[in-house]
């Protein structure tokens, strides 16, 4: 029994990474919050928890695809702000909503092509993309304002069959990501490419005949599209465009992915781990809000958690 538990908790040789421990942490946090505060366990707050955590869950799932191949996408925060700004452009929803996904796919395509074809380090490519997008977003919408299409607002605030709509967003996102990661050749190739990168032989997957470049590009496209989806959700929540809504979102997403047991060096990770990691972050944010912690302290705590989680992961490479 003890050996079994240890084997489940140890990550040695596992492709999924350590995701049971964060699940226990999430459960512990939920139980502790419901014992400590009266406000936690009521329908209003739980709905709030889901609705507040959903953008992070969606973004983190997208980020996971990129982290699995040993990359990193620092532009997701800007993609989110950009999406809300585009949605608030005062046009018909039938044009704007597909439009933001096309734009996000183009952004991801740019990231991927620059990284694979022009041989630029992912961090540098996405960091500069972050600034380019931030600039464009500020031109489109210098301060928050405008109104987003009614369809978007209705899709996040209503409920269907007595279940609030954000829950369906979560189910749909997870289903799509599950199909991509575990139900397709693409998902398997991601693990192969990432495994090679993590062990220092970047060409390993390529040498096995995997078309690594197009899979890497596709991973960045998916990451951007998920970020855009989170942006649409957030736009529906705040009912307007906001150039600063995605600020530091990329770090929250990376933290969530890392908490869920996905190795930042690539090749090891899981979808359920990422969802659990995002849940931990959402519970933490909710708990800190209930306890009236200053937003500045919340930023500090999030930064400290990121430092702690990534310093617990071991990797061979030094530097970037």
């Amino acid at each position: 029994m003890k050996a079994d538990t240890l084997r489940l908790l140890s990550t040695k040789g596992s492709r999924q990474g350590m995701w049971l421990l964060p699940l226990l942490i999430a459960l512990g946090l939920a139980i502790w919050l419901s014992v400590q505060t009266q406000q936690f366990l009521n329908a209003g707050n739980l709905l709030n928890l889901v609705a507040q955590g959903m953008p992070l869950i969606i973004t983190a799932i997208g980020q996971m695809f990129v982290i699995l191949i040993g990359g990193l996408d620092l532009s997701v925060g800007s993609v989110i702000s950009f999406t809300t700004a585009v949605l608030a452009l005062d046009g018909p929803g039938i044009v704007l909503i597909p439009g933001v996904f096309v734009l996000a796919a183009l952004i991801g395509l740019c990231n991927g092509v620059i990284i694979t074809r022009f041989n630029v380090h992912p961090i540098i490519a996405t960091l500069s993309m972050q600034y380019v997008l931030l600039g464009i977003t500020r031109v489109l919408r210098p301060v928050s304002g405008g109104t987003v299409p009614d369809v978007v607002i209705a899709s996040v605030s209503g409920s269907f069959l007595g279940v609030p709509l954000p829950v369906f967003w979560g189910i749909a996102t997870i289903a799509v990501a599950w199909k991509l990661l575990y139900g397709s050749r693409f998902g398997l190739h991601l693990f192969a490419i990432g495994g090679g990168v993590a062990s220092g032989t970047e060409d390993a997957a390529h040498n096995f005949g995997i078309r690594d470049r197009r899979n890497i590009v596709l991973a960045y496209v998916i990451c951007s599209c998920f970020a855009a989806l989170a942006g649409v959700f957030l736009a529906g929540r705040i009912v307007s465009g906001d150039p600063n809504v995605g600020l530091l979102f990329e770090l929250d997403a990376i933290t969530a992915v890392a908490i869920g047991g996905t190795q930042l060096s690539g090749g090891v990770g899981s979808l359920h781990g990422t969802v659990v990691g995002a849940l931990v972050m959402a519970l933490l944010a909710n708990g800190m809000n209930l306890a009236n912690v200053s937003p500045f302290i919340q930023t500090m705590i999030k930064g400290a958690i990121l430092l702690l989680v990534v310093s617990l992961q071991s990797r061979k490479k030094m530097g970037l």
Partner: protein
Amino acid sequence: MAVALDNSTVRRLLRIPPAYYVFVLLLLVLWIARPHMLNLNVLGIFVRQVAPLGILVIGQLLVMRVKSIDLSGGGVILLINYCISSGTFPGASMGFFVVLALAIGIGVGLFNGLMVGKRRVSAVIVTLAVSIILVGFVQYLSSGKPPGDVPSMFTDIYNTKLGPLPTPVLFWVALSFAMWLFLSRTVFGRFVASVGENAQAAHFSGVPVERTVVLAHVLAGLFAGIAALVQTASIAVGSVRVGLDLPILAVAATILGGVVFGRGEGGVWGPFFGVLSFALLFVVMTAFGIGESGKLVAQGLIILLAAIFYGLRSQRH
């Protein structure tokens, strides 16, 4: 493309860091479009403005040569600016503030270095996290409001001139010169070059790889501390936003100057001209009335294009 790259003149020209081309190009643009701005007084003011950036770049190029990166400079500058301007240390002397700034810089640099070198954590994530922790800390202490004024002794020194040249610019040039000597004449300079080229080979040749990386980060922190002092003197007031865009500009100037992760072709003077290019870019953008958003786009594009410039030359498969 392949034919053009084989041509030896083209190849030799491509080896010159893009910073020099950009610098000349911007001078030409300015000379054609706004010739009246090309006088020593106007340019002196703009160059003086980028002196903190230039000092930060000296540290940045060091960490980038050992394949690392330091994005925590913004947090360090903000914290030191707060310490000086908030009046937490009433009646403190200049020397106290200088020692405090250097100590904060070295402390943060040492933490970054240990995390990157010993714990092998991704440098981007460590330094970004450290930065947001420091920013959150300062904003918590000041409740998001600008603290107070900077003691006038800082501004007094900042405004002095030695002949026609402003002191901060001379200080920056002197520090760059010191770093150039340090990298080209000392054993540590050779260590930095070898770790950047191939960390494994360096390790087997007996180079203390980890210690070199840690020391590079400590020095980068130290330079961030110095940059914070100059920046604080230049804006003369406390602020909760000062210096937050400096780290990304420093990365941009360093890459523009020909120092890309692990490769130090540009030396110290390439990034130096990278910073000067940014000074000119700000002049040009001010002259043409391009706002803050345009600057963000320009920063991003410059990093991207400079990185592509180097990436194209090191293709794999």
